[in-house]
């Protein structure tokens, strides 16, 4: 029940109780910013398998879940980590080896699909995709869709505008809603009952959160309800959508968390190097993820000096002057 009781729990419990094998999961963030990495690593530690993952442009989080073998099916618009990996390496290998079923959409299509889910609608329209292979090529074939209640029967549907030439849009692409069983997002501030405030760009996190049957919020800071209620204009997610609240500092590391810390260029570059080699990658998984009991231990693998360099400048919101070339 998503009412106003205290929902604070541990990451281990939240993942164990809500993220089941083969469940339909969506994670927030974008490429190298505000990915719910602590949750991603906990899912890997708990060896979840067969996940059906939804994302728009999540780079690091998606690639680590795919690399660890947690994901069977992926609906996505973009799998890259900016300059650190124009195409996510483990994602690319898995697709090229046929180990991962992918269905491609555009960023706006994925955003609208989450928005439709949040609005309680079966679809939303757009002009994006007309004439392209995004409409023609389905990642999940018709028979798979017919035998899986959790998938819409069609990937995308093109219709003529029922209002004729109104708004100069003779044709529209209808994108089907996504209602993930679980969405996980990382935010800067939340209170015990689940009200949440994201600082900086929200990406599609709010839509992903409200579209989900169950919502796990990890937060840098656990704050008092009255603190958030003093400036409700700055909050985005009311507690009525939330199942679990997990306070966890550095919860988005190695991706960035605006106003708190920057992404870690060294980690992301080393990750790419590891990802490019099977042996190195297995070593990475074992040493960095599986051998650390939780995110706190994982973060503790860094010396404080290094972490200090990542702390955000309170004015700019990022680590001004951070050395980012390697």
């Amino acid at each position, binding site marked *: 029940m998503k009412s106003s009781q205290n929902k604070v729990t541990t990451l281990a419990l939240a993942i164990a109780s809500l993220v089941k094998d083969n469940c339909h999961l969506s994670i927030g963030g*974008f*490429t190298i910013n505000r990915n719910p990495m602590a949750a991603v690593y906990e899912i890997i530690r708990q060896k979840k398998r067969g996940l059906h993952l939804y994302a728009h442009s999540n780079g690091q989080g998606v690639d680590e879940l795919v690399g660890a073998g947690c994901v069977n099916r992926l609906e*996505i*618009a973009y799998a890259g980590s900016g300059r650190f990996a124009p195409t996510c390496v483990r994602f690319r290998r898995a697709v090229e080896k046929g180990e991962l079923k992918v269905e491609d959409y555009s960023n706006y299509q994925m955003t609208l699909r989450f928005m439709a889910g949040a609005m309680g609608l079966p679809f939303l329209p757009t002009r994006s995709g*007309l*004439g392209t*292979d*995004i409409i023609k090529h389905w990642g999940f074939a018709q028979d798979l869709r017919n035998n899986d209640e959790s998938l819409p029967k069609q990937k995308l549907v093109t219709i003529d505008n029922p209002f004729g030439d109104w708004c100069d849009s003779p044709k529209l692409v209808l994108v089907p809603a996504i209602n993930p069983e679980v969405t996980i997002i990382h935010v800067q501030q939340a209170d015990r009952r689940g009200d949440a405030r994201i600082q900086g760009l*929200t990406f599609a996190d709010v839509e992903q959160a409200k579209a989900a049957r169950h919502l796990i919020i990890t937060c840098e800071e656990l704050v008092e309800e009255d603190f958030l209620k003093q400036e409700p204009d700055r909050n985005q997610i009311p507690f009525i959508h939330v199942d679990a609240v997990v306070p966890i500092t550095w919860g988005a590391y190695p991706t960035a968390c605006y106003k708190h810390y920057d992404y870690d260029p060294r980690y992301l570059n080393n990750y790419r190097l590891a990802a490019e080699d099977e042996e190195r990658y297995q070593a990475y998984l074992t040493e960095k993820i599986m051998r650390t009991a939780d995110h706190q231990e994982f973060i503790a693998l860094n010396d404080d000096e290094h972490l200090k360099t990542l702390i955000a400048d309170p004015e700019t919101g990022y680590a001004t002057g951070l050395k980012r070339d390697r």
Partner: protein
Amino acid sequence: MVKKETDYSLREMMAIAAAREINDKEIVFCGTGISMLAAMAAKNISAPQSTIFFETGAIDSRLEEVPLAVADSRVMHATAVNGGLAEAFATMQNRFTGSRVVGILGAAQIDIYGNLNSTAIGDYQQPDIRFSGSGGACDVASFVNRTIVFMQHEKRKFVEKLDYFTSPGWIDGPGGRERIGLGPGGPEAVITNLGILRFAKESKKMYLAATYPDVTAAEIQQNTGFTLDLEEAEEFPPPTAKELKILRERCDPQRLILD
């Protein structure tokens, strides 16, 4: 191909070439990498009233350091509004604002009509090479009035037929966009490491508009998988000292993207 010694790199040349395409007062959609440098350079050189805009929801970012992704916290600093993807793409699909946006894109493959592939080479289900996918590219290419495309100039990238059609250019020529239900506009320039290509008013086919110093039109044709009209080709004026100074000192002093 053979690259001569020059006092500027080809990436610098490409960034400056793209910057020169941006008009003042335009809203500039840029992706990760060199397109950001182009937008930053334009804003600092020829288009001071242009507005830098990212699909992540940042509009009019004050870029004091070059972002390494469109979601980099650096794009969130001192914006007009920090929104999300929904707002960003609505701004481009919007009839009144979308018509003032210029989009800068990149791709793995391009055809003679400027249609783009940024998804896969080979069979879609199990590709020989998998790329990141559309991201916002298909959206931008579908919505805005003009796009500029960055390409590495290689035969396997300038192809007769795309392995996967990710983002619409001029489709199959005159009236192509209208036939599939898209609005006006489309790709205007393709900026490569060898020169600048544009699209013929009538046929909407790509032609060679300019070659960089020490690059020949024949060399460009050799690196293109379809026949180019080479008649219009001029020599491209190299970056000025001022352009290079701003690009190097103001836009990317750490050379995070230029190298």
